[in-house]
């Protein structure tokens, strides 16, 4: 018997992926003998679901990119253990959701598969490899001020940036990757961090997980290509670590780099990114 979960799905009514989110939620709840959190009733009467939410880890299932269920969870400060966006999962699997608001047998089969994946998803790390790169050295910061906001940027400390506000700190053929101080402030309090799988390979500017706040989901675009050798479980458990210390404790993944020399030309160093942040800060509206 899998672990029992509380499941907060999309309300699932007016777009084709909605009913698929709803069906997937029903299957998950049946299979793990968990609890269903009705998003509408929860909005009106949160006390109704206090018990299951206190007792069980939470799965959030969104239908489309509007992510109503995630937003409800964020608004109520719920900690999300696992999550799924049906539209994205279908895209990755190359399955078209169609137009129908009533899923047929084929789509129900897809829901069953998605539910199975959610329930069997385990800790991603097999055995962490021994660290060969040292990321503990001191970091020198420069700051950009705009009104009452202060944005930090590491300089002369081996950090590289892309214009998507993601950084890579390079040491010994490896790099730790995370999001910049500007990006974390723009997103606000983070509620979820989706880590990449250890062993996965990523292209330069490819997606290396995502972070999520009440305002938005933000992809982490990897400054370098490489293989994921470590993921920071601390930020998955406590995403606020990224808000508090985006450049050091808030790293997301560690890569074994595959083509540093060929890729570094397309990136900015600390001083270069500082200029980007100055431009962005001038237009910054929280």
């Amino acid at each position, binding site marked *: 018997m899998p672990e029992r979960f509380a499941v907060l799905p999309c309300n699932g009514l007016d*777009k084709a992926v909605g009913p698929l989110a709803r069906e997937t939620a029903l299957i998950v709840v049946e299979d793990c003998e968990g609890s269903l959190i009705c998003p509408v009733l929860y909005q009106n009467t949160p006390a109704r679901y206090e018990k299951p939410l206190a007792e069980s880890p939470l799965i959030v299932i969104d239908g489309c990119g509007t992510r109503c269920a995630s937003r409800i969870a964020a608004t109520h400060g719920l900690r999300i253990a696992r999550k799924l966006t049906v539209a994205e999962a279908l*895209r990755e699997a190359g399955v078209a959701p169609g137009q129908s608001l009533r899923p047929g047998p084929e789509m129900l089969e897809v829901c069953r598969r998605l539910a199975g994946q959610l329930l069997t998803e385990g800790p991603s790390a097999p055995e962490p490899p021994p660290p060969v790169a040292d990321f503990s050295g001191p970091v020198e910061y420069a700051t950009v001020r705009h009104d009452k906001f202060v944005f930090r940027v590491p300089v002369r400390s081996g950090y590289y940036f892309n214009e998507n506000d993601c950084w890579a700190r390079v040491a010994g053929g490896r790099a730790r990757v995370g999001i910049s101080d500007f990006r974390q402030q723009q997103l606000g309090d983070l509620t979820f961090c989706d880590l990449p799988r250890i062993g996965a390979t990523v292209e330069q500017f490819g997606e290396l997980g995502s972070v999520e706040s009440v305002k938005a989901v933000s992809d982490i675009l990897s400054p370098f290509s490489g293989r994921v050798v470590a993921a920071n479980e601390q930020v998955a458990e406590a995403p606020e670590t990224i808000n508090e210390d985006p450049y050091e404790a808030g790293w997301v993944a560690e890569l074994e780099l595959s083509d540093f020399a060929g890729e570094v030309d397309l990136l900015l160093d600390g001083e270069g990114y500082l200029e980007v942040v100055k431009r962005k800060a001038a237009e910054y509206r929280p």
Partner: protein
Amino acid sequence: MGVPRERISWAPTIDYATCDFCMECDKFCPHQVFARQDGDPKLVVAHPTNCVVFCRACAKACPLDAISFPDKQEVITRIKQLREEAANDA
């Protein structure tokens, strides 16, 4: 990227057969890539060079999956070509 932004062909394309002008993409994008003409409900990609190269956030925010982007690898290859050309010219 070391290449003028105007020469990098990274911007969203709206599939008007699918788009229902819900404006989720416009609400999301902080760079004013999208705009509506006065009095016209139709949303257009008004400022493509404002789009942050390799950002696909609006496509992910689109409930109907009506936004697409160019192939990332092709764009990277093209940027590298342009950089080489610029280096050779210098």
